[in-house]
């Protein structure tokens, strides 16, 4: 960008950028582990936690009550978290602020990489797009269709792919790219 390159940063700048990228990577791993243990990362697990609960009986629309005998195995034994609308609102605002800030800082570092402008646009946009698809997918699963839980997994994957690409390319530029004097 305007002739400025990551490879031209002073050692302190290189260290800070690298530590930031490493810290965000560790944070992303911790977030993935937390999501995997509390909710699950597969579309089916996301659907179980987010989609409106379907009746276990044949309770039809307009019917006031229904009862049926069940086996204990039909009751969930996974210690899962139910994400209902108030929690979805809280989760959305914290993650939209947090992830967009992270995506912005990643993009800021990536702006000074030596990658071509078109690739910069595509790769730098991945964490932003992933965040919107991830959080949007949660709302779509809850209010549009449970089958849209796949968007949550896709959004998270997109964010991770964007982060990995930005981190790898930026660290290469920071520490391994040789600047050719013109």
């Amino acid at each position: 960008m305007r002739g400025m390159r990551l490879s031209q940063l002073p050692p302190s700048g290189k260290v800070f950028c690298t530590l930031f990228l490493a810290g965000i990577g560790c944070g992303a791993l911790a977030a993935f582990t937390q999501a995997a243990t509390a909710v699950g990362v597969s579309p089916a697990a996301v659907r179980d936690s987010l989609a409106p609960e379907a009746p276990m009986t044949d309770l039809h629309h307009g019917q006031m009550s229904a009862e049926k005998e069940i086996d204990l195995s039909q009751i969930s034994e996974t210690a899962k978290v139910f994400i209902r609308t108030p929690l979805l609102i809280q989760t959305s605002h914290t993650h939209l602020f947090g992830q967009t800030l992270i995506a912005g800082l990643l993009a800021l570092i990536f702006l000074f990489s030596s990658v071509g402008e078109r690739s910069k646009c595509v790769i730098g946009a991945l964490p932003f797009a992933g965040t919107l698809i991830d959080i949007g997918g949660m709302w779509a699963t809850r209010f549009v269709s449970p089958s849209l839980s796949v968007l949550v997994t896709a959004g998270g994957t997109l964010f991770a792919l964007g982060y990995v690409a930005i981190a790898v390319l930026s660290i290469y530029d920071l520490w391994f790219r040789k600047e050719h004097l013109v």
Partner: protein
Amino acid sequence: MSKRIAIILGSAILSALFSVSARAHITPPVVLASDREAVVRLLPAATRYFVREVRPSPAEQDAIRQRTGWNPDEDFYRFYVGRTAEGAPVAAIVFLSEFTLHGPVRVAVAVGPDGKVTGASVVEVTEESYTWVKPLLDGGFLQRFAGHDARDALAQAENVGGSMPRFYAGVIARLIARAATLYEVTTRSN
């Protein structure tokens, strides 16, 4: 030129770090029991299990609102009903949640055929609220509700020490009162 890049990057990272730490964040959930564990624990005398799902009518919703101040706005509510081998009802369990500033509190409440609470179990809190709920659980707070109906469930939250444990005792008592009222209005009276 490189000094300029360093200043831009450094300022952006610092401002972002300050704004991230300044905003409130709900701590991760602490799930104390699965639904199945809670059902088994609260229906020890049952040998047969039934699911009864009820959709409160507008009149029933009004009755619940008047008695508890709570608006039962879910599409339907699910009771896990335990019966003996002969089919006699033991109790019915319903799971209800309340969302506090610190995240959700989810409670399983067992109500007997006479409308009296036979047991309750806190199944989900958050890391932050767990520090206030744990002393209640360790002190046998939930046992206070056994034998009480919806009307005097709220009174059981009295005489709890500490402002935050007292706050969560109130939340749990409200959930138990709502569960007993829901059972009374939608199931017991039908």
